[in-house]
């Protein structure tokens, strides 16, 4: 009983003639469909390239090239630029220390304006104080001078910042020399003493009047001149920060 029913199930559902008819109809439908489709356009170069790039292996090669060559190159350029900006900032900071030193020198000698003359110990004491200010200034100037190279566009040619720095340094030295000379004259010129402790002195020296001249000089150098250089530096840094080159003038 069970053997008979399984034999019936194995029998095909459609007779062979019906199957053949369906196959023919299907073939006919495919021929019609194929003939009714518009002809394929020839592929453009971009299409071919895109098709080529969409290949998994090609994508792998291109990705590897980008991550091993181009990314480090961009990163290096970015780091270099960042480092240059940092050096410019440091240069600016050192310049502020350098330019402020003339005010320190000025305020160091200020109490002596109330003295008519000074003796050797007082002279030496103030000489030591001024020497400390000068040494700090020389240190700051050496750093500014070295760091200012970062503003160069051409490694062989000096930048506008370096030229402005040199001019400023000469003016600052002139002002500082005036302070030196004033202190020496105050020591050498006798007022109540019988004679000068120095080989020669200027008998026409007016300590207070000369100090007033120094004050004018310090104000000019410490304000106007230093502002000019500082402005130039800040403009250069801003210009460079915004993506410009060193060619700013």
């Amino acid at each position, binding site marked *: 009983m069970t053997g008979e029913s399984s034999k019936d199930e194995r029998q095909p559902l459609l007779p062979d003639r019906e199957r053949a008819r369906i196959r023919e109809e299907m073939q006919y439908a495919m021929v019609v469909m194929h003939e009714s489709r518009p002809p394929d356009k020839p592929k453009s170069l971009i299409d071919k390239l895109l098709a080529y790039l969409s290949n998994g292996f090609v994508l792998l090669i291109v990705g590897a090239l980008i991550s091993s060559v181009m990314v480090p190159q961009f990163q290096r350029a970015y780091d270099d630029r960042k480092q240059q900006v940092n050096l410019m900032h440091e240069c600016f900071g050192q310049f502020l220390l350098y330019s402020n030193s003339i*005010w320190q020198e*000025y*305020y160091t000698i*200020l109490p002596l*304006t*109330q*003295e*008519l003359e000074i003796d050797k110990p007082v002279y030496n004491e103030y000489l030591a104080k001024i020497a400390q200010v000068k040494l700090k200034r020389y240190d700051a100037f050496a750093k500014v001078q070295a760091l200012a190279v970062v503003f160069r566009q051409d490694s062989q040619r000096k930048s506008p910042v370096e030229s402005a720095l040199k001019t400023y340094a000469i003016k600052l030295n002139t002002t500082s020399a005036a302070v030196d*000379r004033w202190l*020496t*004259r105050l020591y*050498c*010129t*006798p*007022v*109540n003493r*019988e*004679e*000068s*402790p*120095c*080989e*020669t*002195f*200027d*008998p*026409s*020296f*007016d*300590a*207070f*009047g000369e100090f007033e001249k120094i*004050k004018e000089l*310090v*104000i000019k150098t*410490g*304000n106007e001149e230093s*502002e000019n250089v500082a402005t130039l530096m800040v403009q250069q840094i801003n210009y460079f920060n915004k993506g410009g080159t060193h060619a700013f003038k």
Partner: protein
Amino acid sequence: MRSSKVGIVTVAFVLVSVSTAVPNGINPPRPSGASAVTTVCKDQRNNVKEEIYRTRIKYGNKRTNKIESRIGATAEQLPLSGIRSITLGGSKARSDGFVKAALVRSDDPEEKSVLIKVNRGDRKLRLSGFRRDGAAVTIDLMTCKSIEFFPGTAGAEDPGPPVMKH
């Protein structure tokens, strides 16, 4: 009371107010005696003029930058920087150390007859200072026929930076 306080504050503000935003230093006062005075003494005998830089009045070992004058009973200590000229009127001082003189002040062009002290006790008052080359010079006041006073460094040339003694 309140209005006077407001007035004081206003005056104080006007005195310290400045018109600049940049560092402007400090303005210390000129100390007393800081003004260098150059004098020219014309000799009584030969009219030769002697220029004295950084003039002080010296008696004994003491130095001052003031000269004592008297008009009637009024005595005055005149700073050398406040005098334009003194013309001494005699060759001998009185017993009190004064001598007649004609005085012209810096702030008053009118010549006034005064007494000028030229002796203090038994000590002669002297003009003390330096020549242009820095050599010390001392002249008795009484040897001068007239004395002209120039404040500051008028007429003086800068002899250059000083050289330290070794």
